[in-house]
């Protein structure tokens, strides 16, 4: 391994490769920041360009694009309250309030540091612990996926602690929307009201753009007296170093979120969309001041952004060791590997070790380069959004939503769906239902349904088919986690009171 590593380092340190990484980073960052163009799309779009390159070079560029498009999603989350990719949903919760206060540049810096940190942790796991960790991917069968979805839904209790009933209704609405179209198991067509276009269901990204972006744009239009969207705070001196110190003080949060991200990344089919919310949830639960989450605090951004970039390394663990893609963009990378004649699996580490180690090492460097690239791009984007008058910003946001929802499946129907959901989302928001829980339901619906029905079918072998849900230790762990998560608000209120009492005493 050492030999392969030094060979890889030798391979990477050329000007050409470095330039390619930087170009890939910028490209990925912009695609990630545009709502609708996700990491999967960014990677798939650029696959043809890699055909003309050597296999290793192609992989290096794609890796850089993947890493930075996940990070780029945080820009739009922070600046316009719209996750650029599903991996940044949680970043809107604290990033946007921070930007509204005039601390947008600080929020972007926090996201940058956290993303680089998380990315590095993920890659380190990939480099050193891939084979043992890959086994986790196989431990998850249908019942475990079902319980994971249940656990995911219980996160709502900490996302929507102000009105839990409304939060769960939002989640149920999201779950229900996710069942539109072909049933994942069985193949019947459901709830399409006769529209053949709805067979494919409602694409997550389309719903995401609709529920987050359109209400935001409509609110801007509704408050048309306001000239600018965000207030621009006076730039403080030494903000870069100060923020760096602030972020690095949160080692517990950074490490916890990165490890969670890596683990979720390993699970096939889950990916950053789930990882960032799980990490956010855990950050809220561990925190001593959970009520401050959602008001624009540093911990929220750190949790989501470090975890989603850790997914990149994590998702590649089962890919390179077992040939099973972890997160969705990994499936595209898998296709590229196959086309280049490299079959992922153990032989990749033996016969093609130079390719794979070069790739991993380049991913490591790409993550580090993300720091300067991100700081520059973040500054420019932040300035643009802050200085662009609302009369231009709001129409341009709508324009981007149209392009974004169209280009996912090249389908004009998706644009109509996006806008309809957007209007619905605006009404729901006025009624006190927030987009977070709804999208959580949308993400988890397909995973939960497939797991649930598959488990029931497999369970037919048992005397009682429902017993299948309680057979494995992982199922029990997830059940206990769900119960804890669900009852957390009860504890939280109590704890908050206790802390408050203590705090008062100190003050008094």
């Amino acid at each position: 391994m050492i030999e392969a590593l030094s060979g890889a380092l030798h391979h990477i340190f050329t000007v050409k490769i470095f330039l390619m990484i930087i170009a890939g980073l910028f490209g990925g960052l912009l695609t990630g920041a545009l709502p609708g163009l996700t990491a999967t799309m960014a990677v798939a779009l650029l696959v043809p360009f890699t055909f003309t390159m050597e296999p290793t070079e192609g992989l290096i560029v794609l890796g850089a694009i993947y890493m930075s498009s996940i990070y780029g999603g945080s820009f739009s989350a922070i600046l316009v309250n719209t996750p650029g990719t599903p991996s940044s949903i949680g970043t809107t919760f604290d990033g946007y309030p921070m930007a509204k206060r005039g601390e947008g540049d600080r929020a972007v810096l926090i996201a940058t540091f956290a993303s680089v940190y998380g990315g590095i942790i993920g890659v380190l796991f990939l480099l050193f612990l891939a084979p043992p960790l890959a086994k986790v991917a196989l431990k998850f069968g249908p019942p475990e996926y079902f319980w994971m979805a249940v656990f995911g839904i219980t996160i709502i209790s900490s996302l929507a602690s102000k009105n839990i009933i409304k939060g769960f209704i939002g989640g149920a609405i999201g779950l229900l929307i996710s069942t539109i179209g072909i049933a994942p198991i069985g193949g019947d067509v459901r709830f399409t009201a006769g529209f053949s276009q709805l067979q494919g269901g409602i694409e997550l990204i389309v719903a995401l753009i609709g529920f987050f972006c359109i209400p935001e744009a409509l609110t801007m239009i509704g408050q048309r007296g306001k000239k600018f969207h965000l207030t621009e705070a006076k730039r403080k001196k030494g903000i870069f170093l100060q923020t760096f110190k602030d972020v690095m003080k949160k080692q517990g949060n950074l490490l916890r979120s990165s490890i969670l991200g890596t683990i979720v990344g390993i699970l096939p089919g889950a990916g950053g969309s789930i990882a960032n919310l799980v990490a956010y949830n855990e950050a809220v639960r561990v925190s001593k001041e959970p009520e401050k989450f959602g008001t624009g605090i540093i911990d929220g951004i750190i949790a989501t952004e470090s975890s989603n970039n850790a997914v990149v390394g994590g998702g590649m663990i089962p890919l390179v060791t077992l040939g099973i893609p972890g997160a969705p963009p990994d499936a595209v990378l898998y296709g590229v590997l196959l086309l280049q004649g490299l079959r992922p699996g153990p032989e990749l580490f033996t016969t093609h070790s130079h390719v794979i180690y070069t790739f991993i090492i380049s991913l490591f460097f790409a993550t580090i380069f993300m720091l300067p690239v991100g700081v520059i791009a973040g500054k420019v984007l932040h300035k643009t959004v802050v200085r662009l008058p609302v009369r231009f910003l709001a129409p341009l946001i709508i324009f981007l939503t149209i392009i974004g929802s169209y280009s996912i499946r090249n389908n004009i129907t998706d644009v109509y769906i996006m806008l309809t959901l957007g209007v619905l989302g605006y009404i729901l928001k006025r009624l006190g239902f927030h987009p977070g829980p709804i999208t959580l339901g949308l993400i988890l619906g397909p995973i939960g349904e497939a797991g649930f029905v598959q488990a029931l079918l497999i369970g037919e072998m048992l005397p009682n088919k429902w017993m299948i849900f309680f057979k494995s230790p992982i199922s029990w762990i997830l059940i206990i986690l769900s119960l804890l998560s669900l009852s957390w608000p009860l504890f939280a209120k109590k704890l908050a009171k206790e802390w408050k009492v203590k705090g008062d005493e100190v003050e008094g």
Partner: protein
Amino acid sequence: MKLKADRIFAIILILVAIVFWTQTKELQYKCYIFPRLILIMLIILSAVMFVQSFFKKSMPKGKLPKDNLKYIVISIIIVFVWIALINVLGFITSGVIFLSSLTFLLDLQRLTIKKVVSTILIYILVLIAFWIAFHKFLLVPLPTGHFI
């Protein structure tokens, strides 16, 4: 006011859930079991919200500032027309027309000829740049019509 809205919305949700339920009747077991679970959950939660709306005395006054609904409705209509015409007029043509009209809508009181012209010019440039970057360079398919 807020509570009344909750009450009405709870009833709407229950009705929607019932409509969905009737749609599950023709499906196989493995296709209806999961949606029905969700529907039960939705109905129970909505019922809880309905009941809650009677007991909760006062809700904290909505922090949301009042939006000017008239402009929101107009702009939603503009966007729907835009989408309908995007495959007829083409990406750039429709983009310039509707982006400009949205900008004008947001700036009705202060509109001058100079602003109108500059806005249109800016959008033409932005859209062409966008079109070249995406359509020509990245090969992202964009909606096309009789014009570009």
